[in-house]
C-alpha cells in the first residue's frame, strides 16, 4: 500500500485517481507514525519548490523521510525536493541526491515553462521504466529542471538541453513529469513503482 505525503503542496486528486484506476491502494501520511502503515511512499508536489520545502518542514516529517528504506517516489516538485538545492527561492532541500535544481530561463532559448508531451529515454536500467518503450512521451509542466548526472539519472529528456527526467539512488526515485497525466505509460510507471 502506498502512502502519500500530505503536506499541502498542490492538489493530489489526479494522483489518487490514477492509483485507483490501476487498482493500487493508498493512504495519506500526515504524521510520523503513519509511515509504518505503508510499504512505499510518494512525495507529490506542484508549485514553488521553496514554498513546498517550507511546508514539508512544517509537517515535522523531514527527519523520517531521510531515514526511509522503503521505496520513495518524488513527483515533479516532490522530486526536486530530493535534490540538494533549488534556484527557485534559492533554498536548501533534502539533499538525498547531490544534484542541483536549476532554472531553464537563462539556459535555453525555448519557451518556459516546458509544457506538454516530451519523449523520455530510460538509463541505468531504471525499474520505473520496465515495459515502457524508449522515447515514450510523458506530460511535463515545469520551469526548473534537475541537472543531468550519469550516476543518478533514471531517464533523460531534451528541452534545449539534456536533463534528468527521472533520478534514482538506492530506494529513492523521482520523476519530473506527471505520470498521473501521462496516459497509459504513466499508469504503467506508477504500477512499476508499486512493485519495486
Amino acid at each position, binding site marked *: 500500500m502506498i502512502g502519500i505525503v500530505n503536506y499541502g503542496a498542490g492538489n493530489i486528486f489526479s494522483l489518487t485517481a490514477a492509483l485507483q484506476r490501476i487498482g493500487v491502494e493508498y493512504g495519506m501520511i500526515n504524521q510520523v507514525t503513519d509511515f509504518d502503515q505503508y510499504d512505499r511512499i510518494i512525495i507529490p508536489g506542484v508549485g*514553488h519548490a521553496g514554498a513546498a520545502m517550507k511546508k514539508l518542514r512544517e509537517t515535522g516529517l523531514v527527519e523520517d523521510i531521510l531515514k526511509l528504506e522503503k521505496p520513495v517516489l518524488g513527483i515533479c516538485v516532490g522530486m526536486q525536493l530530493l535534490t540538494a538545492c533549488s534556484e527557485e527561492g534559492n533554498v536548501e532541500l533534502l539533499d538525498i541526491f547531490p544534484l542541483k535544481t536549476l532554472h531553464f530561463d537563462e539556459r535555453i532559448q525555448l519557451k518556459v515553462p516546458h509544457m506538454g508531451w516530451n519523449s523520455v529515454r530510460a538509463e541505468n536500467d531504471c525499474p520505473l521504466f520496465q515495459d515502457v518503450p524508449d522515447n515514450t512521451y510523458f506530460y511535463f509542466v515545469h520551469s526548473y529542471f534537475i541537472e543531468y548526472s550519469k550516476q543518478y539519472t533514471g531517464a533523460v529528456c531534451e528541452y534545449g538541453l539534456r536533463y534528468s527526467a527521472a533520478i534514482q539512488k538506492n530506494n529513492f526515485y523521482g520523476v519530473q513529469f506527471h505520470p498521473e497525466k501521462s496516459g497509459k505509460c504513466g499508469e504503467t510507471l506508477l504500477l512499476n513503482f508499486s512493485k519495486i
Partner: protein
Amino acid sequence: MLAKRIIPCLDVKDGRTVKGVNFVDLRDAGDPVELAWQYSEQGADELVFLDITATHERRKTTIDLVKAVARQINIPFTIGGGINEMADAEVLLNAGADKISINSAAVRNPELINQLADAFGTQFVVVAVDTRLIEGMNYVHLRGGRDKTDIETEHWIKEAENRGAGEILLTSMDHDGTKNGFDISLLKKINDQIRIPLIASGGAGNQQHFADVFQHSNVDAALAASVFHYGEIRIPELKETLKNQGIAVR
C-alpha cells in the same frame, strides 16, 4: 522533442456536451466523460471543456463533471467558462482540473491573473483571448466575439504574460467557424513576442490547416471543436499527416 499538441474543445451545458457529435461508437454522445475518454484513446494530447451553463446550478454540475473527468481520464484538461474569482478557481483545482481558462473576468479585472498565478502557480492559469480585426487592428472581444473592447490584442497578451499567465489560448473570431484555416499571420506575430505557450484556435477545416499553423507560426498547440466532433478529422490520421510533414507529435 517537445510534441505539438492537438486539443479538442468540448462545449458543456448543464453537464452535457452540446454541439452535435458524430462518433458512431459512442453510447451517449452527450456525456462529456465518455466523449473525453474517446478523445484520449484516439491520441488527443489535452482537452478543454468550455462550460456555457448560465443557471445558478452551474457550479455543482461543473464540479461533478470535473471530478468525473479527473477520475477517468489520464491526460491533462482545462476548464473554462464562468470563472470570475479566486473561489471559483479553487474549487475546480480541488476537483482535479489541471488548468483553468479565464477570459472576460481577466479583462475586467487583470489583477485576477496575478492572484491566480501566485496562489496556484502559473501552470494553472490559461488566459483565453477572443480577437477580431477591425480596420487593420486586432482588438480583444468579449462574450464570444460580440462585444468589442478598446484593448489591442497584442498588448493584452503581453500584459497577461507579465501578470503570470502560464499559457495563452487565442481565438480569431474572424476565422472561427469558417473552416478556412487558422489566422497564421496573427498567431506568428504573437508567438514571436511571448515566451509562454500559445494555443491556436479558430478556423480549422482540414488536416493541412493544422500542419500549416505549426509550420508557419510555430505555435505550441492547436485547438478545434466541430471538425473533431463531427468526425471530419480523426486524430490518429491527423497525427500521421503531421508526422509525415516532419512535425513532432506524440
